[in-house]
């Protein structure tokens, strides 16, 4: 399936793309548009103004996608809070990891020369963040 988002990826969109590829559509192909009007008709848009899979009720797009696809993994919900705070910094959640994630993603965007490369570089970070949160959920405490 094809998915479309705005070019110039940062934390919410890289996290959404990772979530889609890992939990919703393993064959996902991404296209990057500069304007909502450039989105190909057959692609599912996310994190674009006016799209269903976008910011909703003060939440970020990652939270919207979790709700829409009924993903109830607690580790993903914890990551959603981190992504929310990294993206919106409105202190709705207590997620001290957010500042670090934001800085890491900003650093990656300085070395990535395309949105495709940005996805390739950021996916391993989300994989590991997910693994950490998954183990923390199992143990009931932060892994040592």
């Amino acid at each position: 399936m094809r998915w479309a988002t705005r070019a110039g990826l940062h934390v919410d969109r890289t996290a959404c793309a990772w979530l889609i590829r890992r939990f919703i559509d393993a064959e996902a192909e991404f296209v990057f548009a500069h304007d909502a009007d450039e989105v190909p008709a057959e692609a599912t848009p996310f994190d674009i103004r006016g799209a269903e899979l976008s910011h909703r009720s003060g939440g970020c797009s990652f939270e919207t996608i979790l709700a829409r696809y009924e993903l109830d993994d607690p580790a993903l919900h914890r990551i959603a809070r981190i992504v929310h705070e990294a993206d919106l910094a409105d202190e709705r959640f207590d997620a001290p990891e957010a500042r670090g994630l934001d800085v890491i993603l900003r650093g990656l965007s300085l070395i990535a020369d395309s949105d495709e490369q940005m996805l390739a570089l950021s996916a391993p970070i989300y994989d590991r963040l997910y693994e950490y949160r998954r183990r923390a959920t199992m143990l009931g405490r932060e892994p040592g």
Partner: protein
Amino acid sequence: MVEVGSWVLLSYRLPREPSAPRLAVWRKLRRLGVAQLLDGLVALPLDSRNREQLEWVAEGVVEEGGVASIWIAKPATAREERALATTMRERIAAEYEAVIAQAHAAAAEAARRHRRTLARLRRELDRIGRRDYFPPPERDRARAAVAALAAALDQGQRA
């Protein structure tokens, strides 16, 4: 000729009632540190993050039954831009001043309970820093005052 910079503008209108969404929008705009040009017209220096943040506010306004649009604009003269920057800088300077006053007061007491004050002031500095587009001299003074509070608390602990 002096170059003027680009700004991203949000123009919006929300129904007067209910007041909760209006308040929520106002809080978001305050957190972003916008310059209020008119009632329902705010501006931030243009960068991709500011543009995106204002776009999401616009989206929220529409979700609540209001109207909103996003514009990219340049002040016609450097003087107008300076006036805008000065207003923003003065407001941020007052926020730093509040941090400085609290840091000094806590450092004078150097009581253990001020560990919490220190953590709160550090978070506050971080918040202010995110919306500080034209850093005033108070920024460095505020950082120094918070660092001095940390040092005073360390001293107190060793004594």
